[in-house]
Each structure stands twice: as C-alpha cells, then as structure tokens.
C-alpha cells in the first residue's frame, strides 16, 4: 500500500486530535446513526489505524470516509486545529487510487432512468458531474453531497444512497411520526446543514414527557428540499413550515437561492387556493447564529399561531 504515503504526512496532525469527541454535536451523520465510527473523531481514529496497521483498508472503511456532507462544522469547531476536511480529502484519494468500491454519500445516477438531458452536469456547483461514453459520471472527490443534481433531475434518476435522515423519504417518515405522536405539533423547521440547527439532537423525550410544537429536521442543503415534502408536511397537519437556510452569499451550492425561489412559487400557489402564504417561510440564518435561529423560530411560531390550524390534511 504505497499510496498510504499520501496519509503519512498527517500522522503528526492526527496526534494533535486529543479525541475529546466535541465534534460529535456538529455532525449530522453521527447524530443520525450514533455509531462512533460515523463521527469525525471516529473517522480520524480509523485513519490513524490505517497508518499504524491496526485497520485494514476495505470497502467498508473507504465508504465511511466518503460519508460526509462537507458542511465543515467539525473542522471549524475543532479547538485542536485538526484540518479534518483536508485529511479526509487525501484519504479519499487514497481509497479511490487503491480501487475500493466507494459510494458514501456521493450522488449516484440510475442510467436506465437517466434521460441524458445533462441538466445535472450544468447544474452541479462543484463540477463533479460529467458525461462520459454516454453516461453521467460523478467525480467522487468533487461531489459534496449537496443534492443539487437530485434537485434538477426530472427523471428521478439521481440519488444519494445513505441520507442519514436527510433524504426526502426519511424526512417524510420523521414528519409523519412527529404529527402522529404529538397532539400539540404545529410546525416543521427545516434547517440546512450549513446553517444553524439546535444541538438537541441526540436525546429523545419519553412520549408523555413532551408534546412539542415544532420539530427541526436537517436537510443537508435547503436547495434540496422539494415542494412535495413541504406540501406533505402541511397535509400531515402542520400549521406552517419554516426553512432556515444559510445566507445566499455563504451558500456554496446555490441552494439558498433555489429554496427561496421554490418556496416563493409555492407561496403563490397556496395563495391562489386560499391558504395564507405566511404559512411557508424561508429565513437566512448563518452557521453558529443560534440566537437568530431561536428568534426566527419564535417569530414564525407566533405568526402561525395567530393564523391557526389549517383546514386541510389529517389534523386541525
């Protein structure tokens, strides 16, 4: 494994990681699975094991390194100063060069469904998609799992295999469960992974102990949140839906702009059928601004509480 030399340069850096685990709270992947191997610390330990020979390179290990939403929260939060994403980048290169079968959270195309319109190639903000020999190819080193390609694909030919709670079907399951279990449920707050979401993600209340009005769900990039999911939320009984995205100038995927445009169109449609458009709102909240997140959520809840329950869907 001469390619391991690519990782050797990080040995000293990996020693700097004191394995405090403070990165756990910043990682949606870990919060979703709660297996430590899915945390940034777990992945750094794996790389250390590769260097020391304690861990054998394998498809399993390779996929762990490619399971990442690239939000960079872990690196920003690391007080030991470990450049986590840079270390990951070299590790990913090593695994690809070594021929491991890797998917991770990179986008995959179903070639039977693909219409070859090439919209995803044009759309990808990271130049990760190309058209080679009649097929769409994803550059797994460039793909940042933002889901822009899923968003543009009218044939539903693109997917992210493991969504860690962020894929549309997973979101819809969580929404349904929330409105089924909580009589007081009023709203869903979608938050993009790059924006701010509350830390209260790894503990759950016993059913009789909580009857919350809102549930916050992480969407990776707000641009990936489709209208169907938002409408489904209203149909499940929500009084309203709030989408917290990062400021457009901060969004590396063009997703904030798309989320705003899409929700703007949805608001107009709702208005036409007599539903107050204020029931769907999009707000920019920069990463780390927990105060703004909580103020925005409170203001939104006050507004939809004034509007009252929607007279559609399963709940009043």
């Amino acid at each position, binding site marked *: 494994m001469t390619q391991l030399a690519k990782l050797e340069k990080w040995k000293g850096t990996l020693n700097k990681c004191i*394995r405090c685990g403070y990165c756990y709270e910043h990682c949606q992947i870990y919060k979703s699975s709660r*297996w*430590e191997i899915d945390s940034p610390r777990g992945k750094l330990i794996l790389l250390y094991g590769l260097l020391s020979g304690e861990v054998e390179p394998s498809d399993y290990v390779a996929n762990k390194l490619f399971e990442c939403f690239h939000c960079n929260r872990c690196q920003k939060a690391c007080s030991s100063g470990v450049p986590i994403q840079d270390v990951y980048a070299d590790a990913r290169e090593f695994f690809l060069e070594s021929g491991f079968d890797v998917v991770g959270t990179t986008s995959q195309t179903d070639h039977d469904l693909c219409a070859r319109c090439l919209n995803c190639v044009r759309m990808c903000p990271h130049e990760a998609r190309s058209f080679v020999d009649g097929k769409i190819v994803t550059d797994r080193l460039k793909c940042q799992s933002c889901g822009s390609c899923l968003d543009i694909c009218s044939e539903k030919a693109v997917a992210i295999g493991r969504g860690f709670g962020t894929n549309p079907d997973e979101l819809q399951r969580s929404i349904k469960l929330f409105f089924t279990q909580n009589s007081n449920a009023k709203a869903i707050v979608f938050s993009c992974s790059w924006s701010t979401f509350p830390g209260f993600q790894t503990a*759950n209340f*016993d059913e009789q*102990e909580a009857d919350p009005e809102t549930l916050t769900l992480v969407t990776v990039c707000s641009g990936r949140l489709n209208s169907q999911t938002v409408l489904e939320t209203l149909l499940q009984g929500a009084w309203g839906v709030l989408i917290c995205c990062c400021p457009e100038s901060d969004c590396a995927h063009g997703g904030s702009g798309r989320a705003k445009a899409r929700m703007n169109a949805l608001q107009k449609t709702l208005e036409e059928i007599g539903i107050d458009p204020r029931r769907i709102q999009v707000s920019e909240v920069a990463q780390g601004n927990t105060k703004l997140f909580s103020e925005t959520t409170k203001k939104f809840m006050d507004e939809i509480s004034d509007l009252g329950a929607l007279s559609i869907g399963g709940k009043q």
Partner: protein
Amino acid sequence: MNSVNIAKLKEIVGAENVRDNKADLYVYGSDASVHEAMPQAIVRPQNTEQVQELMRYANSEKIPVIPRGSGSGMCGQVVPVMGGIILDMKGMNRILEINTPDGYCRVQPGVVDNDLNAALKPHGVFYPPTPASGVVATIGGEIANNASGTRAVKYGAARDAVLAMKVVLANGDCVSLGSNTRVASSGYPLERLMVGSEGTLGVIVEATLRFVPIPKLRCLGIAKFNTLAEAGDAISEIMGSGCQPSMLELIDKIAIVAANKAEKLGLPEVEAILLFEADGMAKETIDPEIEKFQAICEKHNGFGLEFSYDEKERARIFAGRAKLFPSLSKYDERLASTSLADDMAVPFSKMAETAKKIHEVAQRHGLVMTAYGHCGAGCMHTKILMDTDKDFQWEAARQAVAEIYDYVRSVGGTTSAEHGIGLSKAAAFKAEKATTLELMRGIKKVFDPNNILNPGKLMDGPDDWVEATRLRYQVSKAG
C-alpha cells in the same frame, strides 16, 4: 476468556445494534486517553431488558462487559484491557420525566449532558455538574466517573445530584437504589457507591437526578497575576473568607496562550488569571461577592480586575474555557496534548504550590505541562504536552506523572477530582487507597463475583500505565 457469540448478541438486541467488524472495534477501542485495546463486539442495547439479557449471557460465559457512553473519558476507563463486549449505552437516550414540583428528572444513561440541560431550561432549572465536556458526555458516564466542572464549587459534583438509579448487576438482576427524595437516612447509600465506580459494579440503566434553579443573574470577574503563588494565595483566601463563587477558575500562562490561539479569547497572557463568577437572583446579593473577590485579589497583587454582567461576554469566555482541553494541542505545533496527570484535587492552600510543582517537574523532565482547574473546588488539571512519537518522552512522562502524584498525596490531595482513574491513574490511586484496596475488592466481588464488569480498572488497574495497553500513538525508538 470465552469467545463472544455474535449470533447470540444479535438475537438479544437485533442485528442492527451489534458491530463486530475490525474497523468499528478499533474505533471503540479507545477514548480520550493515551490507551487503546480491542473489544470483541460492540452492542447497543435499547432497553433495560436487553441489558439484563446481555449480562446474563456474559456472566454465564465469563465475558468482560464495558459500559460506555460517548467515550470522552481521559484515563482509559472504557478501554477494554481484557477484551469483551462494549455496551454502547447511547441507544438508551430518553429523558423519562421532568418533575418540577418534586425537583428531579429521570433519564436514561445515554442522554448527553447539554441535551438534558436544554430540556430543563424551559422549566427554569439546570443539572448542576457542568463538565466542560457537556457537549458530548453522557449522564451515565458522568455518574460512573463522578464528573463535575466549573460550577462544582457551588453546586457539587454528580454524586451530589444523584438521588436514585436503576442498575443491572453482573448476574442480570435489575435493582433500584436510592429514592426520589432529598433526604434518606437508613441503610448503605448504594446509589452513591455506584457514583465513581467506573462501570465495575453494574450497568446504570436509569438515573434520578436533582436539579437546581437557573440563577437570574451571573457576574463574571477576571483578575491577572504576575505569579502563580499570588494567584494561589488569593484562591485560598477567597475560599476561606466565606465567599460563595459559582465558579473560580485558575488558568496558567500555557493554557492562556493555547486558549487564545485556538479560540481567540483575547485573555491577557500573564502568568496566571483567576476567573470568578457569582450568581444569584438579585444584583444586591451578587455585588458583595464580587467586591470581596476584588478586595482579596488586590491584596495579593491581582491587577486589571474587570467585572461584567454581560451574558454574551460571559458565554464567550465560558465556551472558551470549556474547550481548553482540546485547545492545548495548539500551544506548540511540535507538541501534542496528552491526558496524563490530567486531574487531581488538593487543599485550597496548596493550589499555588501544586501549580509550581507541576511546572518544576515538567521542566526537569523536558516536558511542557500546564496547570489550570476549578480551583474553587480544589481541582487542578494538567496535561502533558510532548512529542508523542518519541519513546524518551514517554519515559519522561512516566516519571513526571509518578512524581506529581507522590506530591499530591504528600499534601493530603487525591488522585482524581472529577475525571476518574481508569488505567492512567491506577497506580497513583492504589498508592493513595492502599489501606482500603481489599475492602474495595471485597465489594466488587459481592457485586460481580466473576469479575466481568470493566475488569482491570480502579483497584485492579495496572501499576505501569505506559505498558498497560498499546499506546494510541506510534512511538519510535529513534529518540
């Protein structure tokens, strides 16, 4: 030891809650300490019944079981020195009850400290131990290690907050310990015995914890000192004066420099600073505390005293202090921070001398060591910053750790204030508790006759921490 029957584990908790591939095992083989060792399986039970069945199986096969929270311990408490099954308790993460009239909450062991406090906040109360690792530490882990933190000086440690608990014993029986009351006079307080037992006596599956009101106001003060001795004298006078701080922290220059580099705190880079916080429901009760602090610090040549009720500024400093442990890796690019001689407690009057001793020992052995801590509770933290690749640095660390704990015992201190013993501090612990080791072993035998619960820790821990396990670092003999 018998081999682990993976199929049996899957039958008990479901295949989705068992991991046995080498990559997962390797990740679960270490914590925030310098140690690593391989378990045979990781199991994530979802309820008490599953824990009971797992214990019955492990006990019949004499397989070690190591309960684990988030693995943020610094001394190797959850490193499986004898292999076995890691019980990842994060699968039991429910807040079961918040009972405001009776002043307690009931939680499962996998609930993260900060999550619990976020849930308690709307009720105007908080769970007081406040370890710096609250973002990751689980309640089960905190109880097992009697964790505490910056607010221990006023509100106590985990042991003071635990009212009752449910524990699964080695034979699979589930017992209820303590009561949901503030006072209980009769019998042996077994719920308290469990606190600090580091998973050697049973598996905590539920805890009843008292909480306290969130004070309306908090005022943070800071004082600078040109010598550690003066700061130390100020500490003992503050604590002897009847002052009631809700936080009293000592931070030495090494830690200040690291925190400034990592978190851009902008703290003054003097020899030592004291952070003082007083809290309460009215300014009239807080101001006198602050005035006392100010007068005592000035008497001991403290300077640049500043005070602020500003919540934002206090939160910024508080968050920076909480990240001091990881920040230390940024002190010097060539050195890594290791959790060695990581905490201890000494009488207030010995704080300054302890800090001085730590620096003197470090210098003599060619190491860098910092001294900081929750000095209002008598707690001193340090870490060894060294080139972890070099074997001679580990030999120096071995000697330094031994000398520091010899000193701590000589002044009536104790081996661990709040981080626990695990593997790294077992030798010092055994020396300190020499007259009670057999009593502890006897208690262990009653609870766990087959010695399957986290074996090889505390009183049965290694005499030489360097050789106890593989070190998590690749150490070369090149020198």
